[in-house]
């Protein structure tokens, strides 16, 4: 199970979204991982990707402690932390 943590401001925006969740998955790119979250919580992909190929300018996604881009590989037991960057607030 990968574990994912969402920022509070995003859970305000998408009421069905929890602060933390576990995701059963096989290894995949962060892009595919976001797609799988979109299937579970509609609307989340739009708020993380500003275009089909880029994470939004003021969103930071860390995978196992390392800041990630969309081609970063998420492992089945990874810890994914999604943060609102201080630059955006």
């Amino acid at each position, binding site marked *: 199970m990968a574990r994912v943590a969402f*920022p509070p*401001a*995003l859970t*305000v*925006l998408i009421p069905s979204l929890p602060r933390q969740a576990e995701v059963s998955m096989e290894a995949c790119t962060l892009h595919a991982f976001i797609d799988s979250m979109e299937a579970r919580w509609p*609307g989340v992909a*739009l*708020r993380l990707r*500003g*275009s*089909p*190929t*880029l994470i*939004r*300018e*003021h*969103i930071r996604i860390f995978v196992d402690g390392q800041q990630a881009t969309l081609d970063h590989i998420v492992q089945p037991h990874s810890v994914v932390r999604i943060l*609102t*960057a201080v*630059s*955006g*607030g």
Partner: protein
Amino acid sequence: MAVRVLVLVGTKSGSFILESDAARTSWELRGPYCATWPIHHMVYDRANGALLAGGGNAWFGPAVWRSKDLGMTWSQSGEGFSYGAEGPEIKTVWHLAAAHGAVYAGVDPAGLFRSDDGGVTWSHVAGLRAHPSSPHWVPGAGGLILHSIATDPTDPARMWIAISSAGTFATTDGGATWEPRNRGVRAEFMPDRYPEVGQCVHKLLQAADGAQLYQQNHCGVYRSADGGMQWEEITEGLPSDFGFPLALHPHDPNTLYTIPLNGAEQGRYVPNATMVVWRSRDRGDSWTPLTAGLPAKDAYIGVLREAMAVDTLDQAGIYFGTSNGQLYGSANEGDNWQVLAANLPAIWSVETVVLEG
């Protein structure tokens, strides 16, 4: 029949609603709504009976918030606000217009989107950014923003939009193709003072009769009687050619209001720190200052492009919001003013809706 007058206020930190009866002497404020997101424009869509609030958050991008119970509950969506893999990221929604069963949104960076489901999902009206001038559009101080949408009251295929600072464009085929409509409008900041595109329109509006267009520009106030093919400057009589907001009387196409500011490089305050709304009853041939109830001195106030509106009662109410967070209103067409709310966040937009029953 009971009349409810709502003033819809978009601010830097959320949206607010003020409500009164037809007398418009006593107001009740509620909000903030939209999760305190920056809201650039809020309108009422009569086709769906919904309030729509457009804005953007630096973290999560553009959104249109919807409420079907006059603001008590809200949901949001930004689905479809994208220029695709090759295009720039859309930052925010700047303007909304509901007409002929559709809702249109102007965004930053400048582009036009259309919704046919009441503002839930959006599709790009790609013809506008396909115009050959688009690579040369440059942002104004507020960004490269599509901030004005004027729809024709009878012809759904006819529409005008304005971009700061690219100018006014018109379509007669529902958005498939567009033409610049800037002839006669000065661009003092360009080597050529009258280019085909590049004018810095601050607000574009269509009069109630559908025949007349007006604009407040970075360089003057203008009117056009031929759908923007030719513009005529009507700045004479005003204290400055610079300003942002413009409002048109709901029933009299000859009456308009503007609030000139002291200049682009002078702080963008009202001239002489004296708050004045200017009214013309003759399509801009002459102007009358309206001051009763407004600050006469020490008013370092700016009013942004979307922050003035009229209501639709027989004796029209006029409202404007300031960048200092004050909302002023007049129930008698601008002759007398009162403060309706004194301590809101910086006000970015003001609109009204009158409901009966």
